[in-house]
């Protein structure tokens, strides 16, 4: 009898809770306080380089729109451009602009202004306006041009001296470079007015400070380091993690100087216990990586071996002993990088290889973290290759097989050994509603609204 009563009580509570949630409607107003570890010195989209942080890209998307945007599957979708059409040969593209769009300073977003913005971001392109369209002409066939235009770097900005204006949902009201940014909702945004009135972004905050600010209610949205996400969630915080959007890899400074060195590099790749790196050091904040791009983007990444195989490592290394220790550099300001580097050196030692850690910038091997900046696989792979100093692969065709071949070629150069793909995590306070992240970790702050603090 007692047990039946208890079951009824729990069931009624759940029903009441669901009903209460359903009746809370989105409402406008309020200020969203955001803390980031990144501290960009410029808001101009053209200053976003390939290794720019995710937070910087997220802030850019709040202010500036791109002609095209990518959906969660990486497919191009209309944004400022209502439609686009390639001419035969895919070298010349015409983008027809959405009508009635204005910059945040009230100026109409015309084809001339869009073309001017794109020319600043891409000096090598031929861009010109044609009535309500923008025509882009490349030197070679460019199938991925729409996806490329979706990158934050190609955000459409109206540059008036030092003043920047975009067509995004928020306009800049105060800006202290690398310190603080204040944004106000743009009422006439073509996508509709965002729910919150303003966003205050505190930059250059350490992860520990951000966590403290969230716990004290001084921040609504914070960044969380991948290795801290599990512990933060275990502490009862609201943590959202993206799909893996950052590559951690070992990058060799030079091509192999001999077949023996190729074998040593291959043996090193086999010796690394990526599972331990991810599960223990990263606390599950990522995925073991055998390829450069994560599996959620390509679907074939599992084909690249990511598990440790010490026997094979020793077999590949063969009888030839490494003549001298490789030096391995890492970012001394990144505690995770130091731990991963030390564990990698331990694993390498098991395979008879020697890695000597150094904080010097000049080293045989670098441990790098490179963000994946596009949901489009080809663009993401090319950007990754460029970021780690490899020649971007030529794509023969547009198929998945071509992408796989290109990535395999990069790996077989023995210049890079993928270790992990890291997730982007963030924490949100109890008053933040409708919070969501794109698979690439982009924030959708324009959809967020603030409700009463949850108990």
């Amino acid at each position: 009898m007692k047990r039946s009563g208890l079951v009824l009580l729990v069931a009624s509570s759940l029903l009441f809770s669901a009903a209460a949630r359903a009746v809370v409607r989105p409402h406008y107003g309020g200020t969203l306080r955001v803390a980031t570890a990144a501290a960009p010195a410029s808001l101009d989209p053209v200053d976003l380089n390939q290794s720019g942080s995710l937070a910087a890209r997220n802030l850019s998307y709040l202010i500036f729109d791109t002609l095209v945007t990518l959906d969660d599957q990486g497919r191009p979708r209309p944004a400022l451009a209502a439609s686009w059409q390639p001419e035969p040969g895919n070298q010349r593209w015409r983008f027809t602009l959405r009508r009635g769009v204005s910059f945040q300073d009230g100026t109409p977003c015309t084809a001339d202004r869009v073309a001017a913005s794109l020319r600043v971001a891409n000096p090598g392109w031929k861009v010109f306006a044609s009535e309500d369209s923008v025509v882009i002409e490349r030197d070679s066939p460019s199938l991925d041009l729409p996806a490329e235009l979706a990158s934050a770097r190609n955000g459409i900005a109206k540059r008036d001296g030092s003043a920047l204006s975009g067509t995004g949902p928020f306009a800049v009201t105060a800006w202290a470079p690398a310190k603080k940014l204040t944004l106000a909702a743009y009422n006439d945004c073509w996508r509709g007015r965002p729910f919150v009135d303003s966003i205050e972004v505190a930059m250059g905050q350490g992860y520990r400070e951000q966590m403290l600010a969230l716990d004290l209610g001084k921040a609504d949205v914070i960044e969380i380091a991948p290795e801290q996400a599990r512990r933060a969630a275990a502490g009862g915080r609201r943590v959202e993690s993206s799909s893996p959007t950052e590559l951690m890899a070992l990058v060799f400074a030079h091509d192999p100087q001999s077949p023996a060195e190729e074998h040593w590099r291959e043996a090193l790749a086999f010796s690394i216990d990526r599972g331990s790196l991810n599960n223990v050091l990263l606390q599950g904040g990522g995925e073991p990586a055998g390829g450069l791009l994560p599996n959620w983007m390509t679907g074939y990444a599992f084909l690249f071996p990511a598990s440790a195989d010490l026997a094979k490592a020793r077999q590949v290394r063969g009888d030839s002993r490494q003549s001298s220790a490789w030096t391995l550099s890492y970012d001394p300001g990144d505690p995770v990088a130091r731990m991963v580097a030390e564990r990698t050196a331990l694993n390498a030692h098991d395979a008879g290889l020697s890695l000597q850690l150094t904080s010097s910038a000049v080293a045989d091997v670098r441990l790098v973290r490179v963000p994946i900046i596009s949901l489009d696989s080809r663009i993401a792979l090319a950007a990754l290759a460029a970021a780690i100093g490899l020649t971007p692969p030529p794509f023969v065709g547009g198929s998945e097989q071509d992408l796989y071949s290109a990535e395999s070629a990069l790996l077989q150069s023995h210049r890079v050994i993928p270790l992990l793909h890291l997730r982007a995590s963030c924490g949100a306070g109890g008053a933040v509603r409708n919070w969501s992240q794109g698979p690439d970790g982009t924030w959708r702050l324009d959809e967020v609204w603030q409700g009463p603090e949850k108990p």
Partner: protein
Amino acid sequence: MNFRKKLLTVFALTVFLSVAAVTAIVSAVTRRAFERDDDERAAALVAQFRREFSRRGEEVTARVEAIAASDAATRMALAVSHGSLDYGAFLNDAKNIAADQQLDFLEFVDNDGTIISSAQWPEKFGYKESFFSRSAPKDAFLRQETLPDGAALGLSAIREVDVGDQPLFAVGGRRLDKNFLAGLELPAGTRAMLYQNLGSGFSPQLLLDPSGALQQPDKLAALIEQVQQQHQETGALIHWSSDDLDDETVHAIPLTGQDNQLLGILLVGNSRRSYIGLRRHIRSAALVAGATGIVLAILFSGWAAGRVTRPVEQLAQAAREVTQGNWSVQVPVTSADEIGQLAQAFNRMTGELLEQRDRLVQTERVAAWRELARRLAHELKNPLFPLQLTVENLVRARQQSPEQFEEVFRESSSTLLAEIANLKNIVSRFSEFAKMPQPRLQRVNLNEALQSVARLFQAQLQLPDHPPISLHLDLAQPMEDIAADPELLHRAFSNLALNAMDAMPQGGTLTLRTRQDGERAIVEIADTGAGLTPEECERLFTPYYTSKAHGTGLGLAIVQSVISDHGGKISVQSQPGSGTTFVIELPRNPDKLPASRTDGGPASAAS
């Protein structure tokens, strides 16, 4: 070195050696005392270190026991027992616990020695700890800890977390480093250093003192290598610099681990500054005492030696005067000891010598007069005998042949006159010899004087009835003028040249030579005649001695008198068969030179 100096040296040396011996003895005693004290201090320091080591070990053990009993260790042990071990869950546990317990090292390992969580090397989870053994000692022990950046020496303890089926072990420890050394309370003048024996041979980076890396670590290399080889406590004197004050006695104590492996070497340094300072003070005092003693010894020995050696020196001086001809010298007799007796004997000796000389001079003088009288009588006897015969002949003619008397008288008269003239001649020459005039000094050039003599005898050298005699003039140029009587010199040179010509009846070479020898002018007149025997040379200048058939025997005596009156001297050099050379040395007497040359010098006199 004279007697006084020897005496003085002996005195000074005696004092110096005495002071040096005392100094050496005091230094040796001080050194032994210091070394004994040094050993005692080192032993006390080692004992203190062992106590401190033991105390630290107990502290580490207590902390590891507390860790083993903590909730965190219990949770970890339960996870191990349940087989649901998630290394990630415990990744930072050891680090956090070690920080709480103020330990430098902490690892949790399972029964197999697999690291569950490590404070010193968090990334080493899942690896086996090579040193681990369940039979680890109960007390803290020394061990080498492997770290990402190398190795370190630690004082560790192991405790089992007694929860669940599978045992878990907590291995904690503290690093033996400069902080450990700085924590040791050491007496003044001592210090502790630690060598971490983490590799083979000596590596300077592994040598620590409380301030960190040791300056000049290589100075200790030999000592450390000796301990590495022998595993025994040893010591050495280390010279850190050229200054003795920086010297240090260093005792090296091996520190071993579980399996008696040499893991470290404790070096206890004991400064010798106080000892060196004391030794320097002793030496300084000895130097002052020695120097004072030496000065006093010099003064005293000088006084004493003076008293002893003064009579000896007076005797020596008197002896030197005797050798120089002063036979009348006497030394004072100041004591009755051996020196006084010696002085008396010396005085007696000089007195007797003086008397003997007077007697000898008297004897020689009588002999000379007798010789002169004998020669003069002999000279006078020669004409007297014809006189006697002539007068006797006259008397006999008067008595026996009056008719022939007139003729005999006429003949005898001429004979008598001749002999009387001869007697007068002998007497005048003797008178002339006895009354040689004193030189009237004028400026004379000896070259010109000899040239004048050469011109005088030029005709006689080439007489038709006489074998030719060649003249060789070897005159020094320039020849400085001397103060002399030109006439007397001309007579002397002429006499010598005539003698030389007489000595060469078979012909030969007459050499006239001048040369300058400092303030003396040398004239040589040489012939190539038969030469003289040494006996002839000795008697040559004796009056009335002659080696010629018709000589008076006064020529060379007069020459010697002339030369002597000029302050010069004449000597003869001759060997039978190799000619004769007369060497005349004349002083220049420049202070007696007239202001200018007077007319009528030797040259004009010769002409």
